[in-house]
């Protein structure tokens, strides 16, 4: 249209946000990731909303040395559901307004205080559920918490440490059982 400010036009076309970050050097993920820089293009949320949600998620489950990139996966999941569910989007927007636009930069005590104030709302319950349901599912989380995941593809844990605990005595055979192929088989 004639006379339109090109910047405004760009804002009109691109109202949704981008979350970016850089992985800390030497962390498990940085060792395997193709690049230390990461970016998440949001479908419906703005950058500020995305950043606030990331800090909500980090405040719900604070793991200090876990990368922002791990929490960004929660934001991606929330953004994805909001993109397909207008009610979810308005629930999020209303909740984010209550938290305040400076939530992400507030200190942890303040963030906890503001979340406590909305703890009984559907907004908070949804984000708590999404954080618990998403944060611990990724290779990043597996590496961070030391969880090895499935072992079928490697022959199970039978010969990979299922009984390697040494700080307590072994269980007598009568109350345990033989390794397959040894005794009784």
């Amino acid at each position, binding site marked *: 249209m004639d006379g339109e400010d090109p910047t405004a036009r760009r804002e009109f076309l691109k109202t949704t946000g981008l979350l970016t970050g850089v992985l800390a050097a030497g962390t498990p993920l940085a060792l395997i990731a193709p690049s230390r820089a990461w970016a998440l293009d949001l479908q419906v949320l703005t950058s500020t909303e995305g950043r606030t949600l990331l800090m909500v998620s980090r405040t719900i489950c604070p793991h200090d040395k876990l990368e922002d990139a791990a929490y960004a996966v929660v934001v991606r999941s929330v953004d994805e559901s909001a993109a397909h569910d207008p009610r979810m989007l308005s629930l999020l927007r209303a909740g984010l307004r209550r938290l305040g636009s400076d939530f992400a930069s507030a200190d942890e005590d303040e963030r906890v205080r503001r979340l406590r104030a909305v703890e009984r709302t559907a907004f908070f319950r949804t984000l708590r559920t999404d954080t618990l349901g998403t944060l611990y599912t990724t290779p990043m989380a597996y590496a961070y918490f*030391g969880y090895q995941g499935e*072992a079928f593809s490697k022959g*199970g844990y039978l010969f990979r440490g299922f009984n390697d605990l040494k700080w307590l005595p072994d269980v007598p055979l009568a109350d345990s059982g033989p390794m397959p192929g040894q005794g009784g088989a």
Partner: protein
Amino acid sequence: MSRIAHDDASAVVIVGSGAGGGTLAHELTRRGIPVVLLEAGKRQSLATFTQVPGAAFAQLTWLDPRTQSGTWTVVEDYPTLPSWTCKTVGGTTVHWTGATPRLRSWEIKPRTTYGDVSGTSLIDWPIAYHELMTYYREAERRMVSTRRNGVPGLPASNNFKVMYAGAKAVGYKRVHTGYMAINSRPADDRAFCIQQGFCVQGCKTGAKWSTLYTEIPRAEATGHLDLRIESMATRIEHGSNGRVTGVVYRDRDGQEQRQRARIVCVACNAVETPRLLLLSESGKYPRGLANASDQVGRNYVHHVSGFIWGLFDKPVDFWRGTTLAGIVEDEIVNRPARGFVGGYHLELAALDLPTFPQVGLPYGWGRSFASIIDDYRNIAGMFINGEDLPRAGNRITLDPRVKDADGLPVAHIHVDPHPNDSAMRRHAQRQGTRMYDAVGAKRVVLSRQTPATHNMGTARMSANPADGVANAYGQTHDIPNLFISDGSQFPSAGSANPTLTIVALTLRQAGYIERQMSAGEI
């Protein structure tokens, strides 16, 4: 596999393919009796089981909507998942953890043993223990239970070493790696357990017994089984003489089908079994089928349950190894001096990382909550499995407001725990805490009641028809050719994981059905 015509009225129709239905299908077809087996879910295999916990949950779990109410904490903690069972060929034997303890002789006489406990609807089982024991032995041979019939136990995992040391330190005597229908050596044309720790996601080696790859293919091999997957039973029909005549179901294309039947056996797990009976109400049976006593759906029991986690300052790596291979048997006694009647098992438990925060922990968030997960490598775990007492008001009903995809009322679960349940839970939590403290735990975390994986009692057997739904063979009091073939028929929960008892009762029921058919009674 055979194809049985919809209007063929000679077949036995079994609804549900889990421990009860899948085993019954095998037992009847091997006797030459034609069976139509209706299963609401899809058919998976060792190859299609996924090792992504969330995907496995979605692949196997019964996720049709249910509603709930009552004072049990599950209403608040798991509003959309009061019960955690399966919707797949093999039913809940696909995700079960393989524990096959027996009920004790006094546990099947709870009214006699516990007396008149106020606020309960206790009755004794109408079956002699020595007879149940005959079928326990047969079931244990069939499922290849460890520590029975000369089958060795499973080797102890790290997680069990912690449980064992703690149990011995507080004076427990009967502590071992359990009676498990998980192969400790190759048997039954199935592999041995490689200690993957992925029992609940579907056992990819088949070391764990499941009707999916034992009873059902063996039933198919007889040539007398017609298994129909993605077929959701919606109604059981009857004739003017009151006997059932067939089952209406939705096939995989959403088309309504009607299978005629000589006999109908309902084995949908104890939430859906009463729902189907109630959905089948008619002019002749206005309260639903087999419900002259008004007991269908009542007396719902689900076990006192909950996790106990010990956090240590050294690694346990508790996810490595057979999930539930460990028990303490010492508390399976009736000693009212503890402050409650009935007993409980303490059973080994572990959860994969994605599931742990969602199901394993009490509600929480923030520093204290997250710090538990920070210690994930250093956690040892166990699970309380105790007898909860039946109450007439703890029941499954049809939700008057919420409908499923077919427009039928969903199951509504109401539970108000008896004070006895709460007292038992506190005792078990105290004992579990003592165990972990005794071996140096820096912190013990207790979960609340978990979604019910053991559902029982909602179409119970009773000597007196006024007290229950079925006789000692699971045959309904009101309708001779209608049977209850799952844990719904348990008059009480006992403290044992239910699958072995379901299989034992099914083996007994199959012989009874054959005799009744031969005699021309049904």
